[in-house]
């Protein structure tokens, strides 16, 4: 197109419609002011800025609890709607990214002017490279810190998330020496939405992989390149210890120009770092074997293929994850054959994700998984063992995404295909049975869950090197027995399970921790509260070490323990612990998580127990709101929250409100529980009492009678029935 000389005049670029629109777009963005609110947060002061983003310190608007966050504001020069939509879609996945080395993304949204905001866990620390330099860390300590980052990344990759912007300034090391990875999901989100496309800082100079520089889609392989670059950077500063040849080889292998020539998964990189630490030969230097094998099996060819053809990172990530899992499990001699078949499957998966095949639609992770599932049915019909394995793998992806209902049929088919097959080992079958048992339990299908756990234990028998799996199955069997209403048997089974776990895995093992928690619940159910409190305390002590003090499960058990303290008269201790746990939960999971609701509900119960009626009611009401929104209207835990609210209303002598709450709890339990379940009887009892108090003697009495038929031993029953005759 020839230049239009008439328009090539001084100031010409500023007088056309493009600049007018740019100026107008610019005009719609107001600077951030102290006190301005973003969602539930209010900004306090600026923490830093760089590129197109500014980071502010922010705090909760409602002051309901202490929560300070880092609020990252990203200016967009186009339509931020896509990014906001994508964020809503990915929010659940991001919210589940709970890992000790990942700063959690808590919330996000867009301001009216299109500025995007992201609330992140506030991390105080120094960038990893400066941390290492300031302390003159020896090589091993640097690698150990780097490994923390690798673990975080492996965890995220297993959840279909890639980072895309790893660099020292995104990794802070706190005073406790723990590294935390910032900005997870943000770079990816902005990339996907295209809002950062022309932003000058969309790529960090020196930290973008060759394919990112070429403008291709980032993949897990790009993250691995960036990890290599990061490892290199940790040895770059002046006084850094010398990097030996093996470490240099590891860096070079991770940073190979060709994505297909890098480590296939973060786990492989970690394995090689372990080789380095133990002074074994590193794979990166073997040249021959690994490279030859990798090439021969072409097992990673799809990474490159995916990057070129797919146009979505998710597909690549899913595939990388699946192959990674498949290979780690495979016995070496079977690998060649199976990998070939796996490769065929994955290539097919990419074909559907190819815009040329699918008319350019964007596929979500779930759509890709669904297509993969359909494909497994048709293409691998002749190879049931391999099909079972891939089904298990896809099921595991769904589980990692928190999608139990989607995982269940896949795992059921995987187990079904594996039963009675000579080419599936007892351990493989038992592992699939356990996965299925756990997902059934989570979905409330308790009897099938119990049957599966027992089948798994039978199949496993005395198979060697399967202690972890066996211990897990024993725990599952005990907890499901308890949920089915048989607390005495559950206690016996759990004690047996604990004995086996302690003998094989040790008294301080993670499974022992969960076992003590289960035992506490069985004891609590039998009203042996002081014993239960001791069991919870023991579980806590173990899990604080085994999975970390701010792991959601540890915090959850903290809540349970504190509640027991409240019930045995230690109100002050209970409230102190509950407030500590609430603060941690709000920080780690945010105040929308049902575990936070559980902590509020427990505080309500402790206060009710201590006669503090006024304080209990609002806590219970908030807990119900959180459970309904996060666990679901029909969830059994939501029923417990309703019941707590009902009790708080009763304590206020507001029988009408109490009846409504108890009715809500009862209707959930009627749907979800077997007719003879003790919790159902308790629900009828509570509603019965509330009806009697409210003057409906006939209705109340009918409910009390039904409750008594199932659970004759309810403490207040005789008194309730006696007071309900008057009408």
């Amino acid at each position: 197109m020839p230049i239009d000389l008439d328009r090539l005049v001084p100031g010409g670029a500023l007088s056309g419609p493009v600049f007018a629109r740019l100026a107008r777009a610019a005009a719609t963005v107001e600077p951030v002011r102290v006190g301005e609110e973003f969602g539930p947060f209010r900004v306090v002061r600026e923490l830093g800025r760089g590129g197109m983003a500014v980071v502010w310190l922010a705090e909760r608007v409602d002051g309901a609890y202490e929560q300070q966050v880092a609020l990252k504001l990203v200016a967009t020069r186009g339509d931020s709607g896509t990014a906001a939509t994508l964020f809503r879609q990915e929010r659940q996945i991001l919210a589940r990214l709970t890992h000790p080395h990942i700063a959690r993304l808590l919330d996000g949204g867009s301001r009216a002017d299109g500025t995007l905001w992201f609330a992140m866990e506030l991390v105080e620390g120094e960038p990893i490279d400066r941390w290492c330099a300031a302390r003159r860390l020896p090589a091993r300590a640097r690698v150990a810190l780097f490994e923390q980052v690798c673990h975080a990344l492996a965890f995220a990759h297993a959840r279909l998330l890639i980072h895309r912007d790893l660099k020292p300034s995104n990794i802070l090391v706190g005073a406790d020496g723990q590294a935390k990875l910032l900005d997870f999901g943000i770079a990816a989100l902005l990339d996907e939405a295209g809002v950062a496309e022309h932003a000058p800082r969309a790529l960090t100079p020196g930290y973008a992989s060759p394919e990112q520089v070429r403008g291709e889609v980032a993949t897990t392989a790009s993250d691995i390149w960036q990890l290599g670059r990061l490892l290199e950077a940790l040895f770059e500063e002046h006084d850094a210890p010398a990097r030996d040849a093996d470490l240099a080889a590891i860096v070079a292998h991770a940073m190979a120009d060709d994505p297909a020539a890098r480590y296939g998964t973060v786990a492989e990189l970690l394995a090689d770092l372990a080789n380095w630490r133990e002074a074994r030969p590193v794979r990166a230097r073997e040249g021959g074997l690994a490279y030859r094998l990798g090439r021969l099996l072409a097992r990673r060819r799809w990474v490159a293929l995916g990057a070129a053809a797919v146009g979505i990172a998710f597909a690549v990530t899913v595939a990388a994850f699946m192959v990674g899992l498949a290979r780690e499990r495979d016995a070496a001699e079977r690998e060649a054959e199976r990998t070939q078949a796996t490769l065929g499957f994955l290539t097919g998966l990419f074909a559907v994700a190819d815009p040329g095949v699918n008319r350019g639609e964007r596929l979500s992770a779930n759509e890709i998984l669904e297509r993969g599932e359909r494909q497994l049915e048709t293409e691998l019909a002749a190879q049931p063992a391999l099909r079972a394995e891939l089904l298990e793998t896809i099921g595991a992806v769904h589980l990692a995404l928190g999608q139990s209902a989607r995982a269940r049929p896949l795992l059921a088919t995987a187990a079904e295909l594996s039963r009675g097959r000579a080419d599936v080992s007892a351990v493989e079958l038992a592992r699939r049975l356990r996965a299925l048992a756990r997902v059934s339990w989570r979905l409330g299908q308790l009897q099938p869950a119990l049957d599966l756990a027992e089948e798994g234990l039978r199949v496993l028998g005395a198979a060697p090197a399967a202690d972890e799996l066996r211990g897990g199955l024993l725990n599952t069997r005990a907890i499901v027995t308890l949920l089915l209403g048989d607390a005495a048997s559950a206690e016996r089974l759990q004690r047996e399970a604990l004995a086996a776990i302690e003998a094989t895995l040790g008294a301080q093992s993670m499974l022992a921790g969960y076992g003590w928690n289960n035992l506490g619940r069985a004891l609590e159910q039998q009203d042996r509260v002081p014993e239960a409190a001791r069991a919870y305390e023991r579980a806590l002590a173990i899990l604080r070490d085994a999975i970390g003090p701010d792991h959601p499960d540890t915090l959850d058990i903290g809540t349970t323990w504190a509640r027991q303290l409240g019930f045995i008269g230690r109100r002050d201790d209970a409230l102190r612990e509950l407030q500590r746990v609430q603060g941690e939960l709000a920080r780690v999971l945010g105040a929308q998580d049902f575990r936070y609701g559980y902590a509020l509900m427990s505080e309500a119960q402790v206060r009710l127990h201590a006669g503090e009626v006024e304080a209990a009611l609002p806590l219970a009401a908030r807990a119900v709101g959180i459970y309904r929104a996060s666990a679901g209207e029909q969830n059994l835990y939501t029923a417990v929250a309703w019941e707590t609210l009902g009790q708080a209303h009763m304590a206020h002598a507001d029988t009408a409100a109490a009846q409504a709450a108890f009715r809500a709890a009862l209707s959930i339990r009627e749907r979800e529980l077997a007719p003879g379940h003790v919790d159902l009887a308790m629900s009828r009892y509570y509603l019965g009492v509330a009806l009697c108090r409210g003057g409906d003697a006939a209705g109340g009495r009918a409910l009390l009678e039904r409750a008594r038929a199932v659970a004759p031993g309810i403490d207040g029953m005789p008194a309730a029935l006696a007071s309900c005759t008057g009408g």
Partner: protein
Amino acid sequence: MRSCRAGFAGAPGARPAAVAGGVASRYSAAGTCASPAERDLSTPAPRITELLEQARAGDADARDRVFESVYAELRRLAHRQLAGQGNGRTLDTTGLVHECYLCLAGAQGPIRDRGHFFALAARVMRQVIVDYARERLALKRGGGARAIPVDDVEVAEERDALHLIEVSDMLDRLGAHDMRLAQVVECRFFAGLTEPETAEALGISERSVRRDWVEARDWMAANGA
């Protein structure tokens, strides 16, 4: 509140000649620049002079930060300009750009090399505008929903965007042939600098600016098809 002119007046090496004074009085009323409170001085804003020097030395990060400062300032000023108007919102775009330079220069303290600042700001302006043009074009073409422009405004915008990109691409080629000619076009066409400002930016005489401008246009006409 600090005015733009105060910043300039104190700048050593800045020529307090007709150029600066003239521009300031034409485009900038005292008070349009951000006050210290608005800037939140608890975190020092990047020092433009230093960043410019680093950018000149090839530091991409510094260049990005200059870019960011210019864009943020543009944003703030445009907002202010529009805030006082009713629905018939029109922007004095050229004035906006000048104000933007002045405020950045003024608020950041003395700028050692005003000419260089103008030159770099011109490059930033070009990049901002061309990036935005590409974005608009990509949106129209890639968005799918509306592949065909629906009204005259959009037709005009698309043509403008194409023209801006074309000129920018051609400047790259012109730069390979004669860097200074390309810089003159950058300053005059993309940044709307006056002849004296352009002369100062490039360290040449105003007469050279006039001559280069004509020569550059001729080259582009001859090599454009």
